[in-house]
């Protein structure tokens, strides 16, 4: 099945010479939530802007719903909802009328019932008669999302939707994303927050310096690159790691009270059983054992570092 968004060898070089996108190829499947992770200036916003028609590609092709965003821009854009990173709203507009405006702009006839539903869904209905300048930051961000949803898009781009948003609101946002996904909306979000990708994404893409380092199923990614640690607490501290344990590359803590063993979750054998037997054979007494899985964040940092090296 063709993807709802297909990007083929997309390049973007700005007039100043900055090469923001260096050959991005990416297929986004209908109904998925894709998180694009990357540091500041990685090209995330440029990628979204180019798909949405705000930035012109230097070369390459993009299609949305099978429509080329350049030659069939009208049909392609009708399918897209965009929530920008900056909270940009006309201060003197009323919440409800700004949604009607967005809907009309995207070529849809007036539908007050639908606009009201969107407002209710985003807990803005009570403030529908307020000016956008009278709302709190979190509410203004929700208005931006409501505007993007007012024309019933099939693909929703959320550019850093939870930047500077408190924890509660962030959870609300995640729940909203899940609800939208259930309605069949494809969601592409960019984020700094790895926990966000971890919490809601089906797939994760990592962008750095205009290149897509990888796109993978979130759980597969965590498994492939995920590392686990076993931390063995000792009843008695040790001065050095016994020679008989050399093959495990154990790391001794400063106080000598614990040893850490790192292993990959993908290996057929983790070697833990052997290790524990060997530890006992070396005459050490176990006080406690802890295991810990590396987070997406660590994976991400490692990827970006490797890319830079």
């Amino acid at each position, binding site marked *: 099945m063709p993807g709802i968004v297909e990007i083929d060898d997309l390049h973007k070089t700005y007039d100043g010479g900055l090469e923001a996108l260096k050959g991005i190829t990416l297929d986004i499947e209908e109904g998925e939530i894709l998180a694009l992770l990357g540091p500041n200036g990685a090209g995330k916003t440029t990628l979204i802007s180019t798909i949405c028609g*705000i*930035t012109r590609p230097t070369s390459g092709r993009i299609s949305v719903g099978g429509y080329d965003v350049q030659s069939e821009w009208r049909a392609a854009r009708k399918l897209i909802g965009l929530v920008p990173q900056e909270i940009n709203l006309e201060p003197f507009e009323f919440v409800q009328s700004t949604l009607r405006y*967005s809907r009309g702009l*995207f070529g849809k006839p007036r539908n007050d019932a639908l606009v009201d539903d969107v407002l209710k869904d985003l807990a803005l209905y009570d403030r529908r008669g307020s000016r956008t300048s009278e709302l709190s930051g979190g509410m203004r961000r929700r208005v931006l999302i409501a505007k993007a949803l007012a024309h019933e898009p099939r693909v929703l781009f959320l550019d850093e939707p939870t930047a500077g948003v408190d924890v509660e609101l962030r959870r609300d946002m995640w729940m909203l994303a899940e609800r939208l996904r259930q309605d069949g909306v494809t969601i592409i979000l960019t984020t700094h927050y790895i926990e966000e990708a971890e919490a809601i994404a089906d797939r994760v893409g990592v962008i750095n310096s205009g290149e897509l380092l990888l796109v993978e199923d979130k759980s597969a990614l965590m498994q492939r690159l995920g590392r686990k640690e076993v931390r063995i607490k000792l009843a008695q501290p040790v001065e050095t790691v016994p020679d008989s344990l050399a093959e495990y590359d154990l790391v001794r803590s400063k106080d000598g009270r614990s040893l850490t063993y790192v292993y990959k979750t993908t290996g057929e054998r983790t070697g833990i059983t052997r290790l524990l037997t060997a530890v006992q054979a070396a005459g050490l007494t176990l006080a406690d054992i802890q295991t810990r899985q590396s987070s997406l964040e660590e994976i991400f940092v490692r990827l970006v570092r490797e890319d830079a090296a």
Partner: protein
Amino acid sequence: MNWYGIAAIWRFEMGRFFRSIFQSIVSPVVSTALYFVVFGAAIGSRMPEIEGVSYGAFIVPGLIMLTVLQQSIQNAGFGIFFPKFMGTIYEVLSAPVSSLEIVIGYVGAAATKSMLIGLIILVTSLFFVDLGIAYPAFMLAFLVLTAVSFSLLGFILGIWARNFEQLNLVPLLVVTPLVFLGGSFYSVSMLPPFWQNVSLLNPVLYLVSGFRWSFFGTADVPVVASLVAIFVFAGLCLGIVWWMFRTGYRLKS
């Protein structure tokens, strides 16, 4: 054509106008009344008739043109500059509306506003002077053409301007002098021959002259010249707007 899109922009812009209804309508009425008191009554009573028209009536078309030009530029310029300034322009740029539809929406709204104000001034002036309109259809045509073409100019300035200062600079330094020197308050024939010839280089002269002709049947330059001038001007503005959208000038990177 995305008619809903055009209507959305038009309505949005008109909403801005009606939100500040007091400023939008009362201020032109007040300033017109002041012009009539000062120029029409105080000075005009000591002036002879110009080409058979009392001075008070003579300045009405010029006064309307003056306001329509300024309002068209101001409304259209602000209309497109403000979303650029606030960052809300992203929505228009990512929407399924073509450049032509964007222009129709913004320029149409700006022209509508300035024509409304022009008509308000006309009505206001009827309280002060006796005024007949010789060719009402031409009067309306001149009003529409002027409002549209100067809204186009305002739209260009709004895209070009990087800050509020630049946005106000051109209207202040270029348009206002051209309007005042374009025969709004006098007949060009009252000037010395040299300045008459210089005035012929002023595009606003052709607008005011044509517009005045539609009221009184007399003009400084032939009506055909006025019509040609206004079409050339509108065509020039359209060309620039077309180029701006084609290249994404100061709108898209």
